[in-house]
């Protein structure tokens, strides 16, 4: 069983509704802070970590993630360095699943199979390639499965049933429902619209459904946790990193993630 699947099963056994999945860009604000940040995320309540692989042209991301990616690239962060950081994190944490999220080109530059093998060796559990829709993902999904990695796919409010079925054929781990039409960090999401959509998607995909894009506070996290299997928070955390002086980054991110955690836990009691 994959670490991701085990995590969702454990949460269910504990009677908890939803996993908290924070997202950070690897190497932002500084490569030396990434592994400590990952541990801080776990300490403050993260169940799974999504680690963004910086790319020069993050077409599906808003300004916050785009600027974080530019900062990381300016400090020389490459896909190889991301994998090294995961391996370093694994030295002290062999439980928390790590999912890499990024764009196709850095992976193709390394070679999909080489990447899959290296990611497995580093201790990565799942990979989400934003610009690999299922139609273009056959060889990627195969390489992931050959190396015991979960290929994670996006679904959107615009996805038809036919496309959800297409994703269901390839996806394992969880699927990531993008809650609004837009890029990361855009306007607030429509909780009711998400709530209406999730049960149908879950029934079709057969794996847990995470929801992200537009979740900015504990209250929204709580509302989403009532319907989704996982709550993904990215831009809000990256903003916190951006606004914190270097010596306060860890403490402030911990405080924010703990708050989101409490929001999700309150959904359990409701």
């Amino acid at each position, binding site marked *: 069983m994959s670490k991701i699947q085990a995590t969702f099963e454990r949460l269910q056994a504990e009677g908890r509704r939803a996993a908290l999945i924070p997202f950070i860009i690897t190497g932002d604000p500084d490569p030396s802070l990434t592994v400590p940040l990952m541990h801080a995320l776990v300490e403050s309540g993260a169940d799974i970590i999504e680690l963004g692989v910086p*790319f*020069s*042209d*993050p*077409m*599906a991301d*808003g*300004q916050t993630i*785009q*600027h974080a990616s*530019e900062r990381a*690239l300016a400090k020389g962060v*490459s*896909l*190889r360095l991301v994998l090294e950081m995961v391996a370093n994190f694994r030295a002290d944490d062999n439980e928390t699943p790590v999912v890499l999220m990024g*764009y*196709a*080109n*850095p*992976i*193709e*530059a*390394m070679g999909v199979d080489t990447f899959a093998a290296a990611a497995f060796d580093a201790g990565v559990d799942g990979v989400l390639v*934003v*610009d*690999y*829709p299922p*139609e*273009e993902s056959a060889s990627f999904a195969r390489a992931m499965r050959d190396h015991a990695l979960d290929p994670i*796919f*996006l*679904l*959107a*409010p*615009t*996805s*038809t049933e036919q*496309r959800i079925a297409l994703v269901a054929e390839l996806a394992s781990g969880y699927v990531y429902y*993008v809650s609004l*039409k*837009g*890029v990361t960090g*855009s306007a607030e999401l429509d909780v009711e619209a998400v709530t209406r959509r999730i049960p149908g998607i879950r029934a079709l995909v057969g794996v847990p459904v995470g929801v992200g894009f537009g979740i900015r506070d504990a209250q929204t996290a709580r509302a989403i946790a009532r319907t989704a299997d996982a709550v993904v928070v990215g831009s809000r955390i990256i903003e916190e990193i951006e606004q914190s002086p270097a010596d306060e980054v860890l403490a402030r991110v911990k405080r924010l993630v703990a708050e989101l955690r409490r929001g999700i836990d309150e959904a359990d009691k409701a």
Partner: protein
Amino acid sequence: MAITSYDLPDARGHFGPYGGIFVAETLIPALTELKDTYAALRRDPQFIAEFEYELKHYVGRPSPVYHAKRLSDNLGGAQIYLKREDLNHTGAHKINNCIGQAMLARHMGKKRVIAETGAGQHGVASATVAARYGMECVVYMGSEDIKRQAANVYRMKLLGASVMPVESGSKTLKDALNEAMRDWVANVSTTFYIIGTVAGPHPYPVMVRDFQSVIGKECLTQMPELCGCQPDAVIACVGGGSNAMGIFYPYIPCENVRLIGVEAAGEGIATGRHAASLTAGRPGVLHGNRTYLLQDANGQITETHSISAGLDYPGVGPEHAWLKDSGRADYVTITDAEALEAFHTLCRLEGIIPALESSHAVAHAVRIAPSMAKDKILLVNLSGRGDKDIPTVAEKSGIPF
């Protein structure tokens, strides 16, 4: 390799290993809708008739082919003919595609169009058709390009478009494309994205090629009328590659006609400051398609350089990638300095001020014509006029302006 029947791309937009649809899930339904609409309309006689009417009466087509006799005599070799896309309404080939896409937008009930632009020619063409069809128009343009192409920015504003400066990344065409994509994702139900070149996710490369192929189709008729035969070679500049695909495509089955694409070598390929994706790049995925890209060892897209903003792009249309690999087309490079020299040559010998983009194609003709026999024929796509480049040329050539 002989290509006798050519029917690319396949149903999912692949030209061999290139092309495809590499976008986030959010955009897939919009691309599917566009693909289906275009598939139905591209063979619809009424749509075709209206497109042809617009090209004739609004754009001013057919554009002439002109024998650049003084230039040819001066070089003492092959005869150089110019396909005068610079004489189109708005001053470049870009308008052909914009008319077609605006007609699609109208058919799909979209009242807002967005576009990316580098040199500003596609932005101007988009703003023009938006005014013509009564649509709202937003043009994304890198802040570096806004500085380089002030006249075109002003033209877009006169035509009623909003010009949104893009400050991210290298602040040029590729970043404008990223930003336009972001706008499209957020406003997909109301907005039509007019991509200006033969790149992007399927169906854009095939759609833009089809709309631009009017250039080559006219040449197929005009050349025999003018000189009794088809040219020995067709030469066009390649940034994203829309003017080149437009003139190449109808010539692909003509095996005796060489197709030569000219990329921007900037300050020289060896300096790294260039925009020659096919010559110096490697295949990868960017802006929704797989194609040759200028990238570093880690797969990050590198910043490009060219004196001409319209060629300053790290990718290239996927069909060019396929034409390169299949050997049907050859791709060569011209430096900033060579393009600038060709610009001045054409101004002085023929009384034609070419765009700096098109000057790259002219420069290659100037390079190869002298060693060819006088009865050989080179057909150069003069894709745009150079009025927009006058400040750049003045600065580079030390002419007070």
